[in-house]
C-alpha cells in the first residue's frame, strides 16, 4: 500500500532531480561542445551540425605558451597540496591529541583566520613579497615561490580545521596500545595515525588543490614582469580581443583548466562527501 501511494511522488521527484542535474551540467556541456566546434561554427547555437574538431585546442596549445602556464599552475598547486597536508596534519595532531595551554585560543584563531578576506591582504602581501624577494629570491615577486607561500597561508587554517575532526575520531585506546607495544609517539603518529586519517587527507587535498589552482588575483598581482611565470587563469586573457573574442579558444582553455580538478573530484568524490561531513561534525 505504502509503495503504491509513494511511487508517483518519487517518480516526480526523480524527474525533477534529473532535470536539475541537466540544468547544472549544461554550462559544462556547452563549454566542451564549443571547444570542439570547428572554427566558424562557434557562432551558431545549433549543436546538431556537430563535427568535432580539435582546432581550438590546437590554437590554444600552440599559440600562447599554454603548456608553460599549465605546468606553472600544476607545480604551484601540487607543492601547496603536499606542504599543506604535511603541516596541517602535524598541527592537527598537536591540537587534538596534545594537551597544552592556549589550545582553545589557537583553535579560535584558526577559525577567525578563515574569515579574513584574502583579497584585502593583497596590498600588504605585495609589499611583503617584494621584501622577501630581497632575502630569498625564489619567494619574491614574479616567482612561483611567492604564490606557494600565499596559498599555503590561506589553505592551512581550513586544512588544519578539517583534519582535526579526522584525527580526533581515532580512538585514544589505539595510542595507548601503541605505547604499550613500545612505539614512540612519533612512530605512532606516522605509522598508525597518518594512514588512518587518509580520507581526511584526501578531502583536504582536493580543497587545497582547488584553492591554489583557481587563484586569479595573486597571480595577477605578484607575477608582473616575468610572464613566463604566469599561471593558467591569466593565460586565457590572450584570447579576448577588442575586435572579436576567440570563444573557441577561450572555451578550449577553460576546458583544459577544468579537467584536472574534475578528474581529482570524481576520483575522490565519495571520500569528499564523508570528509565534508567529518569536518562539519568535527
Amino acid at each position, binding site marked *: 500500500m505504502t509503495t503504491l501511494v509513494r511511487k508517483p511522488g518519487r517518480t516526480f*521527484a*526523480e524527474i525533477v*532531480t534529473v532535470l*536539475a*542535474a541537466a540544468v*547544472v*551540467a549544461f*554550462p*559544462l556541456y*556547452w*563549454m566542451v561542445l564549443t571547444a570542439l566546434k570547428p572554427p566558424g561554427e*562557434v557562432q551558431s547555437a545549433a549543436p546538431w551540425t556537430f563535427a568535432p574538431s580539435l582546432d581550438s585546442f590546437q590554437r590554444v596549445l600552440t599559440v600562447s605558451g599554454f603548456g608553460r602556464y599549465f605546468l606553472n599552475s600544476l607545480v604551484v598547486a601540487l607543492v601547496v597540496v603536499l606542504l599543506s597536508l604535511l603541516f596541517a596534519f602535524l598541527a592537527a595532531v*598537536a*591540537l587534538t*591529541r*596534545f*594537551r*597544552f595551554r592556549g*589550545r582553545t585560543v*589557537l583553535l*579560535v584563531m584558526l*577559525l*577567525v*583566520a578563515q*574569515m*579574513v*578576506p*584574502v*583579497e*584585502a*591582504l*593583497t*596590498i*600588504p*602581501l605585495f609589499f*611583503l613579497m617584494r621584501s622577501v624577494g630581497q632575502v630569498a629570491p625564489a619567494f619574491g615577486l614574479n616567482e612561483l615561490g611567492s604564490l606557494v*607561500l600565499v596559498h599555503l*597561508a590561506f589553505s*592551512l587554517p581550513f586544512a588544519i580545521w578539517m583534519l582535526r575532526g579526522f584525527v580526533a575520531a581515532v580512538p585514544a*585506546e589505539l*595510542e*595507548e596500545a601503541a605505547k*604499550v607495544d613500545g612505539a614512540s609517539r612519533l612512530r605512532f603518529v606516522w605509522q598508525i595515525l597518518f594512514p588512518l586519517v587518509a580520507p581526511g587527507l584526501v578531502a583536504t587535498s582536493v580543497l587545497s588543490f*582547488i584553492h591554489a589552482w*583557481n587563484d586569479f*588575483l595573486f597571480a595577477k598581482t605578484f607575477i608582473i614582469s616575468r610572464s613566463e611565470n604566469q599561471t593558467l587563469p591569466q593565460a586565457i586573457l590572450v584570447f579576448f580581443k577588442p575586435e572579436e573574442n576567440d570563444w573557441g579558444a*577561450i572555451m578550449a582553455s*577553460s*576546458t583544459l*583548466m577544468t579537467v584536472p*580538478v*574534475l578528474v581529482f*573530484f570524481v576520483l575522490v*568524490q565519495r571520500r*569528499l*562527501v*564523508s570528509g*565534508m*561531513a567529518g569536518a*562539519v561534525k568535527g
Partner: protein
Amino acid sequence: MATPNLLAPEAPAAPPAPSPRRRRRGDGPAAGRYLAPAAILLLVVLAYPIYQLVVISFYDYGQAEAAGNAPLRFLGLANYAELLGSATFWTVLAKTVVFAAVCVVGSLVAGTGLAVLASKVRAVPRTLLFLAALGAWATPAVAGSYIWLFLFDADFGLVNEALASLGFGGMAGHSWTFGTTSAFGLVALEVIWCSFPFVLVTMYAGIRAVPAEVVEAATLDGAGAWRTTTSVLLPMVRPMLLIATVQSIIWDFKVFTQIYVMTSGGGVAGRNLVLNVYAYQQAFAGSRYGLGAAIGVVMTVLLLSVTGLYVRSQRAGLA
C-alpha cells in the same frame, strides 16, 4: 576488558585507568614542535599582513611612498573619514550586501532544496545530480566566468539566440553585461551555480545523519512530506544549515574573480563594483594603497562580526 594490566601497566592496582587527559598534561614542548611549521607560516604570511593592512590604512600610501621615494605621511583616520564620507563607498557597500544576499539565498535555497530531493530519490538520479554538482563545484572561478559570459554573449551567446528564435527578436545582440542589474544578476547566477554544490553536499550529509526512525515516526503520526521536511528534518539539520549559511556569506561577500572577469574589472564607470574589487582598484590601479587598505579593514571587520556568530555556534566543538 580482558587485559587491564596491559592497558594500564603503571597502575595495575587501581581499577579505573588514569584518564588520558591527565596523562597528556605537559605536552607543551612537543606540541610546539608539531605546530611550528604551520605557525611560522601563518605568522609570516597571514598574521603579519593583517597587522600591516591596519598600519597601511593609517598612512598616505601612494606610488612614491610604495617605491620608497617619499617619506610616509601618517594620516590617522583620514582614509576612513574619506571613505565614510564618500557616496561611492556607500553605494558600493550597498551593492555588495545586496549582491551577496542574493547569492547566499540563491545557493542556500538551491542547495538545500536539492539535498532534500536527493535524499528522497533512488541512486541513479541522485548520482547524476551529484556528478553535475561536482562538475560545477570543480570548475575554476575563471573558467566558470567565461562559460557564463559566453552563454550570455550579446552576439554569439546561446541565450540570445534561443530567445530570438522563440520570437523575442529584440533580444538578438542584447548586452547582458551592460545594465547594472542584469550584469550583477548574471554574475550572481554564476556564483550560485558554483557555490550551491557545497550547500548540497553539507545538507545532504546532515539529512543522511538523521535517523530513519525519526522520519518514520513522523510519517506514522500522519505528517506529510512537507510537514516532515519543515518540522522534523530542518530543525535536526540546523547546525549544518548554519555552517552552510555562514560559509556562503563569507564567500559571497568576498567574490572577486567572477565580478572582475565578467564585468571587466567592475563594469563601465565602475557600475558593478563590490568592496573587494573597489579596494583592489583604489590600491593597484589608483595607487592609493592606504585607502585600499582601509576598505580592506572595513570588510574584515564586517566579516569578523559574522565570524563571531559562527564561533558562537561552534563553541561546543571547541571544548
